[in-house]
């Protein structure tokens, strides 16, 4: 990061599209630290477009967005893209009299970007936006683009996962990815393998209710099928994480979230009686 402070790595343009989702990923990013959002927009990138935070409105905002054509930019997308009825279920603005749908924005801006980062589970794999019955036919953005998309699933995406991936891009180029295009530096180890409660699992000591200090396997914890570094990195500047708070992992950083990770908590399981 010193290279960025010394201005020897040029600031690059960043577009942040908030598409069909809950806008949780930008909120999460704003809560990041070391480096924080201020560092992102002053030292690391020129944030050209972000519908939650920018001052521009209406036509001027759309001009700013599509004005990147021909320039170098990194595209970060949070939220899935609604595709039903030509994407009319999600309109992000109007430009030259036409509605600009999320569907259109992804396809027009995605192909020419130097890198595309799907931030959050919805942008990566459809996520909550694409949950059954998915009336707006939401899809993860990779399925709308012919080029590679770096996926950072998480509900929301941890600010460090985005900042770390972006910093790697700025300094060294694209990070090493797994076969689902997730950066290995964040998404390699199963939560189960680095969980502080793993000794309880190995000894067969299972919690039967939330809040008990034992393994939450019998309550339906998805740690064994989720690859991400929550036990180490934790959330809100290392304060806590799901298991530390007494709640099982719901697999929010995996493809298949939420439908294939449900039920999130099970009380009616294999445990018979107390002993």
């Amino acid at each position, binding site marked *: 990061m010193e290279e960025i402070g010394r201005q020897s790595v040029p600031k690059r343009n960043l577009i942040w599209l908030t598409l069909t989702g809950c806008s949780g990923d930008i909120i999460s990013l704003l809560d990041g630290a070391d480096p924080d959002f201020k560092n992102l927009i002053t030292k690391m990138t020129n944030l050209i477009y972000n519908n939650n935070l920018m001052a521009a409105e209406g036509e001027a905002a759309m001009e700013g967005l599509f004005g990147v054509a021909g320039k170098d930019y990194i595209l970060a997308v949070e939220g899935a893209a609604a595709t039903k009825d030509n994407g009319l279920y999600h309109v992000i603005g109007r430009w030259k009299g036409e509605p600009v749908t999320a569907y259109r924005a992804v396809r027009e801006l995605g192909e020419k970007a130097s890198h595309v980062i799907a931030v959050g589970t919805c942008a990566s794999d459809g996520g909550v936006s694409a949950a059954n019955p998915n009336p707006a036919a939401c899809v993860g953005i990779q399925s709308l683009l012919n080029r590679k998309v770096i996926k950072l699933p998480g509900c929301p995406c941890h600010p460090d996962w985005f900042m770390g991936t972006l910093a790697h891009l700025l300094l060294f180029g694209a990070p090493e990815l797994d076969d689902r295009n997730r950066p290995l530096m964040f998404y390699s180890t199963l939560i*189960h393998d680095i969980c502080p409660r793993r000794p309880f*699992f190995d000894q*067969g*000591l299972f919690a039967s209710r939330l809040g*008990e200090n*034992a393994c*939450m*396997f*019998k*309550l*339906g*914890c*998805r*740690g*064994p*099928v989720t690859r991400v570094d929550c036990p180490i990195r934790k959330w809100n500047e290392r304060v806590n994480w799901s298991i530390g708070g007494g709640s*099982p992992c719901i697999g929010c950083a995996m493809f*298949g979230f939420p*439908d*294939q*990770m*449900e*039920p999130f*908590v*099970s009380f*009616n*399981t*294999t*445990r*018979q*009686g*107390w*002993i």
Partner: protein
Amino acid sequence: MNDHEILFDMINENISQMDQIIDHIYTAQNSYNRNRLLNQLRKNIFAVTVLIRGLQKSTGADHPQSDGARIFTPAELAACNGKNGNPAYVAVNGIVYDVTNAAAWAGAVHFGLSAGRDVTGEFAVCHAGQQILNGLKAVGKMAG
């Protein structure tokens, strides 16, 4: 002192603690104190279950091993769905496996699949070529 005696002592200690806590609950001044005591009671109950489990292990009083040649009908397999205290079994390629304590089957559900079913098709699509079945305990075969 052998393991049994140590465990028995700890169990008795917990039980007498629980007695004292119940005495205090009768005279609790307010709901904060009462809840605090009730929380402690829960912890004691959990501690006792852990100790009894330890007793079972040290006497070898584990659950009896299932007969590996058991034949399952689809209805019998469906009953082993991991709910209501039933074990969690799944069938792959005609063999029935016990996934009750398999890490990836927390809550008897794996990526949206419930236990108590034949998951041969889903297994072939997702895990072809992976050495997963070797790590599971086979408990029988499907009928037919």
